[in-house]
């Protein structure tokens, strides 16, 4: 386990999240993909805090805050998705075509 290994792992996770976001056509799947991206950033914080940082507490605390904030964001996202599902009866992003140029 070195710093570099952790950084590469979190970078790969970030890439998986981004790829999933572009490939998935289901709204909940897309939300899970963004969650993976956010957790990749968390891993970065913890890896830096463990291996290199002068101020190690800050990095660990940061990732806890991120988890809380992400929970808020996901709560709002799910509420919005539920309200949309009630109108459309579908969670496919391909059908979000009412607003366009």
């Amino acid at each position, binding site marked *: 386990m070195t710093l570099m290994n952790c950084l590469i792992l979190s970078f790969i996770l*970030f890439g998986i*999240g*981004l790829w999933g*976001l572009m490939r998935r056509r289901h*709204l909940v799947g*897309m*939300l899970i993909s*963004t969650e993976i*991206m*956010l957790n*990749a*950033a*968390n891993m*970065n*914080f913890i*890896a*830096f805090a463990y291996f*290199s*940082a*002068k*101020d190690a507490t*800050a*990095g660990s*605390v*940061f990732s806890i*805050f*991120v988890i809380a*904030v992400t929970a*808020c*964001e996901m709560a*709002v*996202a799910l*509420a*919005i*998705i539920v*309200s*949309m599902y009630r*109108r*459309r009866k579908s969670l496919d*992003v391909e059908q*979000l075509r*009412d*607003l*366009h*140029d």
Partner: protein
Amino acid sequence: MSFSVPQFIIPDLILLALPFLVIGCRLVIRNSKLPWRLACIGLIAVFVLLNLLPLVGGSGNYFISNWRVDDFGILMREVLTLSALLGLLLAKDYFDHGADGKPQMNQIAEFAGTVAFATFGGYIVVSACDLLTFFLGLEMATIPMYILTAWNKKDQMGSEAATKYILMGSVATAFELFGFSYLYGFAGSIHFDAIQNAAAAGTSPLLWIAVLFLFCGIGFKLTLFPFYTWAPDVYEGAPSPVTALLAVTSKATAIAFLVVLVFGPLAPVQEQIAPLIAILAGVTLFVGNLGALKQSRLRRFMAYSSIAQAGYIMVALLGPAEMSKTAIIYYLFLYTVANYLAFFVFGVIGHRREESFDALRGLSKQNVSLAVALAVAMFSLAGIPPLAGFFGKFHLFFSGASTGHYALVVFAVLNNVLALYYYLQVIKSAWADEPEGELTTLRMTKRQKLCIFLLTVGVIFMGILPHLSDNIFAGFSL
């Protein structure tokens, strides 16, 4: 142990308490106008108190070492508070009756509270001294915006817009957070001072990756090229007052984020990232202007217009710190006033009609003062002297040119000619085009008349007398 509350923190405390008071008041007293009035009075009080705060210069005052109130922060707070107040005044009519072919909205007290929370998020961004506070502030400014976009539950477009917004927004958050984590890894600390010292001591690939990710993240929120594609959809689908808030509050917060970042922790490498800023600014304003040319719906048009305005504001970021901050603050004030003026006029027109260019036809014959107000707003956004927008753009471009980015400034000025064309199209619809068939009557409430009058006077006078208020415009001698 005695706790004394320093006076520079009082407006922040009032604003923080405001949403709880407003929503709590709604719980106790049902079906009254009190919550909305309380919210407006509270925001006016905050604005007045902010104007009374003396500007101290330098690095500002610190509260518990981690909450900085400097001159840029105070002026930025004034912009955000003004925007929230005007947003509430604009929104009131959409709660009284349906508009733009959509049903009316409900729960005004919660709406006002959510707006106040978003504004406080902006306050946090301009007061932050470390990455964690900075991140929390940005999230607190953004998450209420998602909720506001979906406020009209009976409107299908609103929830579609909110879905697109929150998906894009969370990706932006992830990018930013990734950038923050590399910045933390680079400096070993989350404090701005430590990061600045580390960047001054020497750069490393980590810093450049961090900058790249941060600009990607903020590019989404500031609608920079190539991350602007969500903006027209969201601006069109959201309720009109929310569109106005998105165009002003959310954009002002994103700009403040960039200013704090570029002139704070990244100040030592500003020269190296200048080409990146210049390219983003140039392409963004060109794309925004091109997009606005072919629009037929007013809110979509305002979306492209605000994309272009973001590009103009980016030009100022290339200049030296003081000059750049002054130009950006001054322009944001003008942009707020002119943008809200346009949205108030759209609100009156949209009461019985669709908010489109066609609905503007024959406006000058039906209600000349409304047509004048619209023309003033559009000329100011386009930057025609002697209106306020001209001086604002002049300062933005001057700031960019002062560090020798002449090519970008010339490009921006040429683009302004393109912008003039589409702003004139709005005025042409209102003044020259003949209406098709019978026009529905326009009704204005006293509040709308007063707001439109005051904002029109504001746009004209801020152009003629740029030194109207010592506090607001003391920035020129910062």
